[in-house]
């Protein structure tokens, strides 16, 4: 019976079916895992206070439980611990994030559940999010406003004071990046101008005097701003809070280092949801802190979007023209067929090869020539002869060109020839037919190609590592300084951010949730783009099928 069953081939059908299940599980499981890990990071987890005794010294630990695992007793006993009076084969171990990085050796530590004498979740434990050294956990002891202890409703006062400090800090940062940054930028431009005159041998005393005057004016302006800046900073330093940490010691936290604080054990569900949303908002809109392991990813989002848009602007016209040429104008012969195959295959060439080409050809050759021709005054520091956002966009444009060409051509070939003939028969020229009939009809296909290209470009990292991406860009490629768009600047990228934070950062454990969150963001964008593209394509197919009948 079983033999016959095997002979019928039915088990093999089941096996192939199993392969589908495995693929489905891995795809959906992967996406679900990224989503879960990425999104749960922002949820305010409860903070536990534990009293430990046993294999460690008697002590109190306050922190968030990050992970749990079971360890075989034998492995622990091998390290010289004694568990003879514990039943069972395994012992639970907890990974606890204790924060307070400057006061403890490790802000993540493993704790054996057998060591925990008692644990509780006191409502008074506060979490402080700080600009330096990560989170701080502890009990609020005293709130000090301008040297005076606040006795009247200290928590509310603290809230208001933190808000004030954050505002002042923001103002100071705006001033520093905005107006002071502008002055520095102008000073640098004056220096380059002077150097340019010098190189042309046109540096007359009048010009020198003029430049000097401009410089003096800028410096004067700077002095005023600097004063405001110091005032703001000093203002932010006014208040502080005294917190008792898990060692039982009182620690004074200056409020200018505090970004936010909350009492996780005292939050209701809706308070948690509110906190969750505000954390997500901060993640998307803030700058990264502490070597990218804390804070938000705004510059990376901005850099990715800016670069991809630049690339789209470059790739669309070229891709469409090439496709129209191949489909409408090129002779229908073996050569065209070969070219078409070659173009399709370029899509399969490893992206790193494009990166190498971009570095050699765009950055060193093209960029180097541009520098030699137009920016001799900046020498020896390169302007365009170094990796930058324009070269990244160009490299990715070449990389995604085949995608746009193939998709557009497919769209063109789906347009029934009757439509074309009709137009020509009515006396329209070929160009008019193209412009008025064909391209509008092919536009959804062009759109699909563009979306696919954008989706591919947004996820590529390897070539960007060679032609322009950096872990931390001090300025965005778009700002208020003339000429406003700085194509020569380096930029941050979500994909590279994942690589950098996940693999190059000193504290991988602390950064991991952030990487998951970034990964989730990137995956969402790319999958949304792809689904849109697929939707457009299907819609288009239906439409033209109707036309043919």
């Amino acid at each position, binding site marked *: 019976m079983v033999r016959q069953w095997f002979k019928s081939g039915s088990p093999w059908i089941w096996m192939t079916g199993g392969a589908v299940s495995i693929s489905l599980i891995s795809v959906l499981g992967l996406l679900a895992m990224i989503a879960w890990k990425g999104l749960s990071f922002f949820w305010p987890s409860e903070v536990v206070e534990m009293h430990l005794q046993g294999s460690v010294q008697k002590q109190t630990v306050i922190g968030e439980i990050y992970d749990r695992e079971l360890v*075989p007793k034998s492995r622990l006993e091998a390290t010289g611990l004694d568990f003879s009076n514990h039943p069972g084969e395994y012992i639970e171990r907890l990974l606890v994030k204790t924060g307070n990085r400057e006061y403890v050796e490790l802000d993540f530590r493993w704790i054996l559940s057998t060591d925990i004498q008692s644990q509780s979740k006191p409502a008074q434990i506060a979490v402080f999010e700080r600009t330096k050294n990560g989170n701080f956990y502890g009990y609020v002891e005293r709130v000090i406003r301008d040297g005076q202890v606040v006795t009247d409703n200290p928590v509310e006062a603290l809230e208001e004071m933190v808000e004030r400090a954050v505002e002042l800090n923001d103002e100071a940062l705006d001033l520093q990046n905005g107006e002071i940054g502008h002055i520095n930028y102008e000073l640098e431009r004056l220096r380059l101008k002077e150097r340019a005159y010098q190189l042309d041998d046109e540096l007359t005393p009048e010009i020198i005097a003029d430049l000097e005057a401009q410089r003096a004016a800028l410096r004067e302006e700077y002095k005023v701003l600097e004063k405001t800046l110091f005032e703001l900073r000093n203002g932010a330093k006014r208040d502080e809070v005294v917190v008792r940490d898990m060692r039982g010691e009182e620690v004074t936290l200056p409020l200018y280092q505090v970004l936010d604080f909350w009492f996780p054990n005292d939050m209701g569900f809706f308070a948690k949801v509110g906190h969750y949303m505000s954390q997500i908002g901060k993640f998307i809109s803030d700058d990264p802190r502490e070597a990218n392991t804390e804070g938000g990813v705004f510059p990376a989002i901005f850099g990715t979007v800016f670069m991809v848009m630049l690339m789209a602007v470059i790739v669309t016209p070229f891709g469409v023209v090439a496709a129209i040429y191949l489909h409408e104008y090129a002779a229908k012969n073996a050569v065209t067929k070969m070219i078409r195959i070659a173009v399709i295959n370029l899509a399969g060439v490893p992206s790193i090869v494009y990166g190498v080409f971009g570095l050699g050809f765009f950055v060193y050759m093209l960029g180097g020539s541009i520098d030699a021709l137009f920016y001799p005054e900046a020498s020896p520091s390169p302007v365009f002869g170094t990796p930058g956002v324009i070269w990244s966009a160009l490299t990715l444009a070449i990389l995604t060109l085949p995608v746009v060409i193939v998709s557009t051509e497919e769209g063109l070939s789906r347009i029934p020839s009757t439509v074309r003939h009709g137009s020509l028969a009515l006396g329209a020229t070929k160009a008019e037919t193209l412009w008025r009939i064909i391209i509008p009809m092919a536009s959804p296909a062009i759109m699909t190609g563009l979306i696919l290209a954008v989706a591919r470009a947004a996820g590529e990292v390897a070539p960007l590592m060679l032609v322009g991406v950096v872990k931390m860009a001090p300025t965005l490629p778009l700002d208020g300084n003339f000429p406003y768009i700085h194509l020569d600047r380096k930029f941050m990228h979500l994909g590279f951010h994942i690589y950098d934070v996940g693999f190059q950062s000193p504290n991988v454990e602390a950064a991991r949730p952030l*990487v998951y969150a970034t990964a989730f963001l990137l995956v969402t964008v790319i999958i949304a783009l792809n689904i849109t593209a697929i939707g457009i394509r299907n819609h288009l197919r239906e439409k033209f099928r109707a036309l043919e009948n």
Partner: protein
Amino acid sequence: MTSNPQKPSFKTDRSRLFKDRFAQFGITSGGVMVLVALLLIFFYLLYVVQPIFESAKVEKRVDIALSAEKRYFALGVEEQTEIAYLLDNTGQVDFYQVKGDGAGELVSTLQTKLDGQITSFAKSAPFLGQYAYGLDNGQVQILKPNFVVTFPGNQRVMKPRLGYPLAGQQLLVDEQQQALKKFAFSHYEDKTAVVALTADKRVIFASFAAEENMFTGELEWQVTRTELPIDGRIDDLLISPDTTRTFVRSANQIYIFDTRFADDVKQFQLLAANEENANLVSMALLAGANSLMLANDNGEVSQWFEVNTDAGREFAKIRAFDSDKSKHMKVHSEFYRRTFFTTTEKGELGVYYTTSEAELWRGKVADQAIDAFAISPRANAALLLTGNQVSVFEIHNEHPEVTWSALWQEVWYEGYPEPAYTWQSTSASDDFESKFSLVPISFGTIKAAFYAMLFAVPIALSAAIYTAYFMSSELRRVVKPTVEIMEALPTVILGFLAGLWLAPLIESHLPAIVALLLLLPLAILGTALGWTKLPKAIRHLVPDGWHSILLIPVVLLVGWVSFAMSDVIEGWMFGGNVRQYLTNELGLTFDQRNSLVVGIAMGFAVIPTIFSIAEDAVFSVPRHLSNGSLALGATQWQTLVRVVLLTASPGIFSAVMMGLGRAVGETMIVLMATGNTPIMDWSIFQGMRTLAANIAVEMPESEVGSSHYRILFLAAFVLFIFTFVFNTMAEFVRQQLREKYSSM
């Protein structure tokens, strides 16, 4: 106005025609330009790679006549190759302009401070740029010609000077103050040593240690002298720059002394180093001072360096080069690279590179004997002294270290016990011997692709077959895009998950992975068998072609069971720790980021590619073929294997090719999920370094135009060609298939 009845005009408006022409011209030229731009990638890569395979060129720049009365010992040139200097037998140093309009002009003549009569002369290793006169009172004066560069009025002006590295103090080598007949010296960082042959035929090794006098601030020399026991005539003396080895050639014998410790000089080895039927004529140290080059009178130049043998470290002959037959051949080394030059009394010059075993250039450059030879610091010019004339040659030898054999064959590198395939491109020191073997990283690429395909092909093809042939069409409409969306997933995310989530998971749950591999097929078969036993009423609830949905809970359950059991199995079979078990019992090294992780992660990236193309191929097999087979009584499975798959096989082949192309060029996953060490080992528990990852790691740091840079371009070119050829093959097969289907 004449009344002209309105006739319908079929003539098209001029401007419209013009626009049409214009559009045609614009689109054609634009389209051609784009295609040319894509072609450019190929040619640009080739253009960058091509110089490494060019051989060296030697071109004469200028001849300069010198005054006939002088006899010169040696010559040299500064970095810009503008001013050359010649040291004569009276201690005078003449500086000549050798570049530009003023070539041949005597710039200046400086006199060396000497206390005694000159009896001998020696020069240091080239990169130190020092020379020394040996005197009749047993003393040595070391000097170094150098240049002060100033920029008056934005013009570069170089003023020659004589520098004295020891502040003008002469070193007393022989306490008996005998004249020095021959000597060699080295003064490098805090090491100073001289080995000398005195007039009464003693060979003295003297090591000097400078100590600053606490009160006067003057340098005082602590000298340790040792007489070296050598019988017979002394031909050549050499000291390595770091003064750890001293070489004395006596006819065909080379005495090698270990002179690391000045107070404990001992003989290291005695080499009878001449070739068969030949005699040694000279010796020299290669840059880096690890290799000794010995010239024979039959024209063979042999390279020797220290190798670990059973008898300890010993100098051994590594390889030999054929040069011109000459009784007076001299060997000269470059500053930093392993290039060496041979000159003869007949005016012949040879250029060789040891690592790549390459003869780069050979020819006759003068009609008379070459008395002295110097290479410029950047190795782009050579100076030859012939009689009373200096000839300056431009040398174009940018990439001597790259030859086909150096890239793809085993090479015996300095200090290695045997020839090996090694990739080690950079190091902190200037005189590092670059090891550019592409074999280990190509091997890594193939290994990574192999494990990825091992994982991906069975799953992707089975899934494609089921989806295309058995699955119900409404389910297929959901499943296919779901799997295909994976193709768009950024590989950086897969790499990150592989490195930070999968690798630790596999490390701690290795038995679970093995169990999963074994249990999964069994569980699926079991479910299938169980399904046939179920009452028909239940079976008919589920429509045909939904097997895979039924199996999802089964797969999940098996996965959960495997992981839950992992620790139990580990404790029961492997003593609680698989890693230790692997290392201690089986002798396998286990890297956390290993091929298994890469195989799974990259396999995952490849599955959608293979799945999508293979599914298309199977799905588009004309239905009447399978219907015919079924009508003749074949089972579904028989029809699939004998008819459908056979017809679709070219398409499946093309799918696998496409998948392979992707696996070979994948960068981020390998970069993040392996340790990136270029090792050659098939072990599944060890990592690798691939061509693509190698480029990503090293490209940003490589110097533009260097051999390293060009070799990385070569790696990119290899990847380009490889994937292009594979993809073209796949595409071609697919097109053929499409035509075949349409004719069916």
